[in-house]
């Protein structure tokens, strides 16, 4: 708190220093981020990576072991497991993005509104989302699929609706906290309109909390996709997703056990990575919050 404490540091240098600090403080989260980035790249470049057409059946070459022409063998229709895993990444990530996108679109604006306006608006919105939380997710997904017709997008939109209350709560709590800050009072006292206060002054300070929630929710969405596809509510045959691969391989588990744990490992590792990343970001946020308090 003295004038001598000014550091001659440019903004970009600070940005780099912060990244290094994050990697040092949260190595697991940083590693998870790298892993997830590779997974996303694999999804994008699936056609390049895949060695075979993921849906091409070779009934003469069913349930092949690992190695040879088929890196991870073939499934019960003789389809290349490695290629299906790679293409399945695409489907799984897309499905998770749909779910999280829907919940962000529903939860964040309402959370901002409730946190900013308080009073009746807050009470009504909070009760609606409380009500939504009491609906079992799988039942709602089943209902929506029954009404809108089968398909992974519909099912995942339903999952997104189930996630929405979490985003609402996180956004609302963060907004309320930020609203109590002097800089918001300051922005009001310089004559900003409410919309400008919320979008320009509150929003940037709420985004970090939402990012943490997005990371965690993506993890849950991946396992939700797996559950739905396992139950046959997700992708339709022959499209591959990690969940559907797990489902089909479960039927031949006694003959080809190695096919169960490949999609299982993918689901497990990606969910874990998203969760670790989210947790790491959350801890990093809390500690910078502490630093700002001095």
């Amino acid at each position, binding site marked *: 708190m003295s004038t001598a404490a000014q550091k001659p*540091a440019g903004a970009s240098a600070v940005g780099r220093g912060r990244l290094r600090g994050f990697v040092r403080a949260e190595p697991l989260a940083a590693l998870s981020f790298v892993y997830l980035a590779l997974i996303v790249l694999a999804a994008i470049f699936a056609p390049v990576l895949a060695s075979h057409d993921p849906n091409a059946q070779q009934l003469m070459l069913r349930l092949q072991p690992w190695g040879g022409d088929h890196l991870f063998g073939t499934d019960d229709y003789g389809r290349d497991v490695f290629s299906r895993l790679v293409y399945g990444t695409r489907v799984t990530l897309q499905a998770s993005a749909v779910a999280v996108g829907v919940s962000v679109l529903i939860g964040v604006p309402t959370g901002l509104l409730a946190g900013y306006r308080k009073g009746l608006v807050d009470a009504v919105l909070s009760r609606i989302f409380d009500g939504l939380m009491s609906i079992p997710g799988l039942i709602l997904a089943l209902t929506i699929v029954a009404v809108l017709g089968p398909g992974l997008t519909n099912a995942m939109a339903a999952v997104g609706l189930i996630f929405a209350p979490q985003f609402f709560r996180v956004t609302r709590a963060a907004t309320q906290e930020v609203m109590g800050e002097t800089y918001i009072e300051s922005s009001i006292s310089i004559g900003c309109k409410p919309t400008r206060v919320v979008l320009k002054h509150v929003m940037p300070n709420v985004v970090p909390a939402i990012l943490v929630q997005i990371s965690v929710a993506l993890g849950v969405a991946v396992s939700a996709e797996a559950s739905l596809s396992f139950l046959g509510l997700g992708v339709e045959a022959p499209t591959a997703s990690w969940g559907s691969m797990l489902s089909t391989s479960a039927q031949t588990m006694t003959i080809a056990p190695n096919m169960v744990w490949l999609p299982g490992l993918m689901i497990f590792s990606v969910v874990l990575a998203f969760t670790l990343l989210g947790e790491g970001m959350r801890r990093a946020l809390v500690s910078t919050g502490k630093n700002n308090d001095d």
Partner: protein
Amino acid sequence: MTESITSQPPLLEVEGLTLEYGSGRRWTRVVEDVSFTLNAGQTLALVGESGSGKTVSATAVLGLAGRKGGRIAEGSIKLRGRELVGLPERELRRIRGSEVAMIFQNPLRSLNPAFTAGEQVAEVARVHLDLGRKAAWDRAIEMLDAVGIPDPERRARDYPHQFSGGMAQRLAIAAALCSNPSVLIADEPTTALDVTVQALVLQLLRKVQSDTDLAVLFISHDLGVVADVADRVVVMYSGEVVEQGPIEDLFTTPSHPYTAGLLGSIPALGRGEPLRAIPGTIPPPGTLQGTCRFAERCEHKVAGCQQAHPPLAVTADSRAVRCLRAADLVLEGITR
């Protein structure tokens, strides 16, 4: 009470301001019948302990009483003769920041951590001066330079956490003055700063004031600081004005025991006496009716003090005091 000789209305005139806080059917009077005037180039200090209602009175001038569950029950606030009480929010927004600006106690907290220094100042220019992105940025750098932030071009790209307390308060002042307001509300602007930095910030405020004829409503509990900056002082206690007057008179011959108590608790170098604190605490707002609110803590109280609520009586030229015994009490002041 006005010191202006011209027939022009004073810049800021607060009359009988009464504020209530609460919700639903229960409203508590937090500030009662506060009046003061402020002219261009003047500094008026609102002085009192925490909870005396000085900050809420000042924020009411910005029309912000409603934001924390309060309302203006009575009174008027006039800016250049124009009534602000009852103005629609849209009109009040036009006044906030452009005509009446505010700086806060903790400068680092009053700056948005998500924006650079330049952006904070440019924001005001964009809201009120209707400038484009580039012009607002140039204006911001100009302002940073004006408040004495070294190397403004580079510092404008720094974030608030890279600023020290004193520099951050300079930044807040730059943002507040960006659109040339006529009134600046300074809510304990130096309380959170180191003493050495305090003096520099006060110096800056004085310089700005003499340059631009700015009127400052200075809120503080520190009479030492007030002595440095103010022309007139309004002493508040438990939501009401207990004494007001020009700074010299009020410091040398206080008329209210509370003022004398505050003066006695200023630490002075070389006086060699122990500090005198005022015993007791400030009563919660709205609890005392029909009695002098300071009576319980007053060492000069007589039987009559707790039987009637004394009115604010004009004593000498431009002075007023709310004390039953004002005429016969001789209280110790401070000579500079």
